[in-house]
């Protein structure tokens, strides 16, 4: 896991982390456009609060937390907007594009768990803190994600056979 060295300009580190930030945002947003908007918003917040970053730990952990909290805020806004325009709610929900084939099988909230633990290599406690959930719940969701992916892998191998 490459870790960018702390520099005086957080913008440079953010650009270096962009592919991974987009990937994490995609597990929360569901569409590339929403994920990019999420990253843009979270990066702006991170830059404005960069003086709070003391260089301890992994920068991406801080940014991931910010992306997750931004996602929660955006979801609340969206729910309020959907409540005001109930007719448009179904259309908005159906417009969510699919993720990658293998990840499409993952229920909401599991992809980010799997990404943080098995791909990004975060410890369960740290990953659970990023997502704002308890470590036990994180372990259950991780197991569920692995089972879902295992089922998808089995389907894929059956199709090939």
């Amino acid at each position: 896991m490459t870790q960018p060295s702390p520099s005086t300009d957080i913008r440079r580190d953010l650009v270096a982390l962009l592919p991974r930030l987009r990937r994490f945002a995609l597990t929360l947003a569901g569409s590339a456009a929403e994920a990019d908007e999420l990253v843009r918003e979270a990066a702006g917040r991170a830059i404005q609060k960069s003086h709070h970053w003391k260089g301890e730990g992994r920068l991406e952990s801080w940014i991931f937390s910010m992306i997750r909290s931004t996602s929660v805020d955006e979801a609340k806004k969206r729910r309020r907007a959907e409540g005001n325009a109930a007719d448009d709610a179904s259309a908005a929900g159906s417009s969510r594009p699919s993720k990658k084939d293998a990840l499409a099988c993952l229920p909401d909230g599991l992809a980010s768990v799997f990404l943080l633990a098995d791909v990004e290599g975060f410890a369960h406690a740290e990953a659970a803190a990023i997502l704002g959930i308890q470590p036990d719940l994180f372990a259950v969701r991780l197991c569920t994600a692995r089972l879902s992916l295992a089922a998808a892998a089995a389907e894929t191998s059956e199709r090939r056979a």
Partner: protein
Amino acid sequence: MNTPRPSPLELRLSAYIDGRTSDDDRHDVEELLVNDPQTRSLHDALKRGADLGRRAFDDMLKEPVPLDLVRTIKNAPLPRRAIRLPQGPRPTLSFKPSGLQAVAACALFFVLGGGIGYMIGGNPAVPQFSMISMPGASSRDWLDDIIAHYRLYSRQTNHLAEIPAERPADILEWLTTNTGVGFRIPDLSDSGLTFQGARLFAAGGGPVGQLLYRRTDGEGDGDVIAISFTKTRPEGNRSIEEIRNDTGLVSWVTPLATYMVVGPSSAADLDDIAAKAAGLI
């Protein structure tokens, strides 16, 4: 989330994959993996699922990042930081003199002012400067310079002239160039004067050419008579005829120059010499 909750065995296997099991639990799981084919199959399936997920997420990193997103972050303004410059506590200056201090300060300034005024008033340089710069005195100073030079060089026996009479061409060129006055060397032998040579000096801030003659016969043998000329045109008198102590001076002015004949005050024929010189020069 509508997915079914994993079974305890699935959770134990998931924790085993992560290495988060206790020693006892790890031994139990390893025993099951050896003895139970279903557990082994489930373990392999979890690992295959994890591998599939990792590959899928790794592929996502290959997608290009939108350029506008990169630009937005790179050009985002950094937060302004309030910088407090280091500075020591500013000393508080309170100017509240007492009555005695105020009186003492007034007395001090009075003494200082009086002293400075006395020094300025007693400085002799100031009136001298004002006299020098007075208008009207320039002609007098100019004549004073002429007479002073005459007195200085008329007493010279060996160094009367800078350029001797034997080099008339040199004299004409040198004095004409430096004074700007065209002239001829008058022959005043009829008056008993023999040309000795010439000099150049400054009078009244301007160059003055001087032709020197020595009386060789008659009364006053050895006296020096000088004819001086300059472009300077002194204000006031157009022509001067005066005696200053032991020196007599007769001057006349033309549109181009001012001429003077200077000699000892004992020379009674200075007027005649001047008249002849004016016609010959």
